[in-house]
């Protein structure tokens, strides 16, 4: 019986691991491969198949009404290139995602820093602030929809009674107001996620480092800026990545509040794909839009992952 002795973390084996041990480890890894096969099969079925099928459909004229689908090459992609609704939907997606993540992220960070010292009997404040995260998206969306109704909504009632506005504001019925209103509701729902992530991140900041900074004469703002934010970077990158993906795919929130309207002022890519596929029954073109949307997501994901790696390296 041989015992493999691996070098400890951070140390160097004089001549690298023995060849036999390396071979043994490789064999053992290959033997274990079968254990991941069920997972790979499920992933292939639920992830790869739809993705591959969507790519395939994007090169066809498949419609739910017309059972005879024919290959159309790159026609759907050429059409997409000239589709003004697609560009509006793309712009809306970027505005919705960017502003939601930015506002919720900054809000979550500020609250996490403010609540950092809330201990003991004030800890419930943190719990209360986290509750929106537990509210189902559709429920939150409808709550905000009713609050922001032009006629009878509580927000307009308050604004009118305080004489802050002379007429009810068409929060959800005007292209100027609809997107900011939808973003506001989304920020309310997503801010607790950032609060949670940043609160956890702040707990990892070593007290000694903060004390050392304080000893060096750093003020509260300086400590936040030069010490705490530095420790929160990795958590922030991961949180932002997750929320960018979540908001890119955010269907129920917008559908429940505005359905993409008025006009197409809140139509994002996911809403557009849904409308194309299930209202106009144009599955081929919907797939082409979906594929482009997926590519954009992949580019974003790769960019963020690289940022994480660079963060780790630095």
């Amino acid at each position, binding site marked *: 019986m041989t015992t493999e002795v691996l070098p400890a973390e951070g140390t160097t084996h004089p001549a690298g691991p023995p060849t036999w041990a390396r071979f043994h480890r490789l064999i053992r890894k290959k033997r274990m491969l079968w254990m991941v096969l069920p997972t790979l099969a499920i992933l292939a079925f639920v992830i790869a198949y739809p993705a591959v099928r969507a790519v395939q459909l994007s090169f066809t004229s498949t419609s739910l009404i017309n059972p005879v689908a024919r290959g159309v090459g790159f026609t759907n992609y050429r059409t997409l290139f000239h*589709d003004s609704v697609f560009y509006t939907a793309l712009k809306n997606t970027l505005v919705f995602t960017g502003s939601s993540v930015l506002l919720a992220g900054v809000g979550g960070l500020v609250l996490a820093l403010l609540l950092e010292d809330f201990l003991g009997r004030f800890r419930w404040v943190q719990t209360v602030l986290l509750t929106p995260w537990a509210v189902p998206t559709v429920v939150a969306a409808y709550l905000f929809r009713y609050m922001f109704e032009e*006629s009878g909504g509580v927000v307009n009632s308050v604004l009118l009674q305080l004489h802050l506005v002379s007429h009810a504001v068409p929060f959800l019925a005007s292209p100027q107001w609809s997107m900011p209103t939808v973003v506001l509701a989304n920020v309310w729902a997503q801010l607790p996620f950032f609060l949670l992530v940043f609160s956890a991140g702040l707990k990892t900041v070593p007290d000694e480092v903060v004390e050392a900074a304080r000893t060096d004469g750093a003020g509260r703002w300086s400590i936040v800026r030069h010490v705490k934010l530095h420790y929160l970077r990795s958590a922030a990158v991961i949180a932002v990545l997750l929320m960018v993906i979540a908001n890119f795919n955010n269907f129920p929130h917008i559908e429940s509040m505005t359905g993409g309207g008025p006009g197409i002022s809140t139509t994002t890519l996911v809403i557009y794909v849904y409308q194309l596929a299930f209202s106009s029954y144009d599955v081929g073109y919907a797939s082409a839009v979906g594929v482009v949307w997926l590519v954009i997501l992949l580019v974003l994901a790769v960019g963020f992952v690289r940022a994480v790696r660079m963060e780790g390296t630095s």
Partner: protein
Amino acid sequence: MSTSVDRTVGARRRQGRSRRGFGIAAVVAAGGMVLAACSSSSSSASSATSPASTAPVTITFANWASDESNTAPGLKAAIALYEKENPNVTIVSQPVSYSNIGSQLLLEVRSGDAPDVAEVQGDYTAALAYDSALAPLTPYAGSSFVKSLVPQSVTEGTYNGQFVATPWIIAPFGLWYNKNILASAGISGPPSTVTALESDLAKVKAKYPPSTGMIPFGFDSTNRSFGLDINWSFMKDFGATPMSESTTTLAVQTPQFTNYLSFIRSLGQNGYDVPNQLQGHFRAIAAVNKVAFAVDGPYFQSAVQATNHMTNAQFYSTFGVTTIPSGSSGTHYTVPTDHQLVMFKTAKNKAAAWKFMQWLTTSPQAVKDYTIPYEDALPPLKQTNPAWASLVNNPNFTAYKNVIEPTAIRPGWGPKYDVAFPPIMTGVETAMTTATPLAQIESTMQSQYKTALQSAGLNTP
């Protein structure tokens, strides 16, 4: 030392690859799940023959009536009664929301899993008919049955010369009005023309400032085929017919359509209507006497009563209904939103399925116990049956039968309608909510329609 550094860098690279892999997998998972919705199989089932009449039969019945609280109990009772009268038949009711039933049925047809019978309406019927998914009903219905139906409703269920959808409830849009609100605003009766309607809306608006929460006109402008259905009759008032299945351009860059958009713009800018609201939204507000006029089907009554629990007498004394106002031509138009029943080609027992469809749509029992009390609508029969004659002896049913139904016209429902409504309704809402020049809106509609037709492969006449 160099070995250690190499290993550390290698580990970081592996970690980076691992993280990148996780990130990509996460994105693929997120996107793939939504894209999965676009996937469909193209298999189709074959039709089956009818078993003996006493053999146990199961009929699957997809409908939205059992998905809505005001009609679900009635339909459940009606089905139970039918099963009692036909002990060998089991009806499996499949509730599907009204908004989703069109696409769901098409998807089920694609996957070879269509129900035997379904409740459909308007453009949904057209989509299934153009998909060749529906069984012709004439061989089962017989000519005497077809002749007993309101002719207009038979026309509405006929596609490519085939009678494929039998009418269940007669439901054209009418102009509903709240008598109390009209009286308080000094309006003596409902308007007959669009001009009179605009005048009445101004009076209501003057009487009730925004702080009262009053909506002068509950008019659906949402970007969906039902939204275009509602707008269609008003477009016709202005002499505009925005699209037809036989052409590949929208007839929106015309003086008639521009006049229609001007009318729509005045609704939005004067605060008469709330843009981007589903018709159902106005029903709930109408129930608390905050909507003066609304364009809706006869089911408006059951929806309102389900909210405010008015008795029929109270409802009739508060709400009236009349034809959609006419334009300068003096001709009234309405769009039928008749609920229809269709049988799929894949239905396993077509004879039994038809027997159930016939019973539910026209039997005195079903009409008396379900159609009139729960849908608040007329059955599709020409002759009034003594069993339910007294139930329809009220002003609203009389208005629907005598003045509204005869004005019904069928819009250009079909594949092109499905790709035409997004650009048209987007333009309508843009006209309603912005100051964008109308000519520019019409031009955008045209180009968006051209793109949509091209992507759907429908860019040939």
